[in-house]
């Protein structure tokens, strides 16, 4: 699962191609325009490399941190089958992180540096995972709707230009289809169950709707970067378009279960064919992504402790080695 990478438009340097060799740049752009993929050792503009590292790294961190809110319910999953399924899903998420770290490494940033930047708070991860999974129903809503959002995003990105990222996403998307089915199954089970179960899933949905609306990030149509990043096939769809696609696919399915979404303005506009909704609270989004959310401290502390506790094992195993970046 994954949330869209958040790029602060204010920090943007609006000339992505400053100082690049015009001939090499033209060849690079022609390759992408013709549908060819870029491979690790190809020449690429410095900003292409930088944006991709940031994006893939954030994606990897999101997978590994994203396994924490769901993992909250492993020990108390209702029944053995659900416990096994949840463990399998969490293992998939951690596996996705490994695939993505490898893809980012091919661009020259070491895994150690990425983990250091995660734990120090320098690198971000998807904001939704700074919220708690209060009940079992929250884990069901996450597995269904956050993973659904992730699939919209990942399918778009899998058509991007960087070979190693596309290959990782192909594998990831295949596994996400299990997550989506598993999550939907859990939500439907609760929504069609006892009044208490319906109440649980409704409450979880109400809690998670604002983070879900934040999931694709603020509107970036007017971002100075968007045009170049789309030409380079780093960014494949605007945040608003992905949010629309998600709403179009999933709001009807949610309403079909008789569940209520906590936004009175949410309606499909018959004229534009798009969904109208109350603008999400982007101030809260910024506040949480910058560290002040309900679970930020816990998520990073758990990650830090895992690294600390595993250190002696890694040290015992670490004979003199020779690191080279992964090939592809």
């Amino acid at each position, binding site marked *: 699962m994954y949330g869209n990478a958040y790029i602060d438009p204010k920090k943007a340097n609006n000339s992505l191609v400053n100082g690049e060799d015009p001939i090499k740049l033209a060849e690079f752009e022609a390759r992408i325009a013709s549908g060819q993929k870029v491979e690790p050792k*190809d020449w690429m503009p410095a900003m292409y490399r930088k944006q991709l590292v940031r994006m893939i790294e954030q994606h990897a961190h999101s997978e590994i941190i994203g396994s924490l809110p769901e993992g909250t319910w492993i020990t108390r999953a209702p029944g053995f089958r659900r416990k096994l399924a949840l463990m399998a899903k969490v293992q998939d998420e951690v596996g996705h992180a490994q695939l993505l770290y490898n893809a980012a490494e091919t661009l020259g940033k070491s895994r150690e540096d990425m983990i250091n930047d995660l734990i120090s708070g320098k690198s971000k991860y998807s904001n939704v995972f700074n919220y708690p999974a209060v009940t079992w129903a929250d884990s069901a809503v996450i597995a269904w709707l956050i993973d659904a959002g992730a699939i919209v995003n990942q399918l778009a990105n899998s058509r991007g230009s960087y070979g190693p990222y596309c290959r990782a996403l192909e594998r990831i998307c295949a596994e996400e289809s299990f997550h989506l089915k598993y999550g939907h199954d859990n939500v439907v089970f609760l929504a069609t169950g006892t009044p208490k179960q319906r109440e649980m899933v409704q409450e979880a949905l109400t809690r998670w709707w604002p983070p879900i609306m934040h999931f694709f990030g603020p509107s970036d149509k007017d971002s100075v970067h968007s045009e170049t990043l789309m030409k380079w096939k780093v960014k494949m769809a605007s945040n608003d378009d992905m949010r629309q696609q998600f709403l179009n696919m999933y709001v009807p399915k949610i309403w079909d279960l008789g569940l209520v979404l906590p936004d009175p303005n949410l309606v499909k506009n018959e004229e534009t064919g798009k969904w109208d909704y109350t603008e999400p609270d982007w101030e809260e989004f910024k506040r949480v992504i910058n560290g002040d959310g309900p679970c930020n401290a816990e998520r990073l502390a758990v990650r*830090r402790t895992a690294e600390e506790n595993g250190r002696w094992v890694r040290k015992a195993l*670490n004979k003199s080695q020779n*690191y080279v970046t992964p090939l592809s």
Partner: protein
Amino acid sequence: MKIISLDPRVNRSSINKTEETVILEKLDQFQTYEVFAQTKRGTHHVHVGSVHAANENIAMLFAKEQYARRGECVNIWVVKTADVSATEYEDSDIFDTLDEKYHRNPESYKVMDRIKAYKEKGNQ
């Protein structure tokens, strides 16, 4: 102060709230191995990705967990990334010469034309 979590596993770990960070040294996460998997007998092994590991045995274990969790595999190879020799994409013109080697191409052999011409000549 300890972290109070909804997750009993976190509470059991008794984690301190702290501003401290850990710094992983270079190679803390080990070198990488490239993984080749065969999906069924009779097919080629295909490169599927890489894993970080301290040695071949652990690389094999991680490769199995990472790339063969759903029974789509019958055999795996792992090899240290550092031991792989590869061509450079910028030198890919070395492969261009293949097109010129028409003598390798079955369609460049036109025996039927020759037989036909021979027969026509004989019938005259």
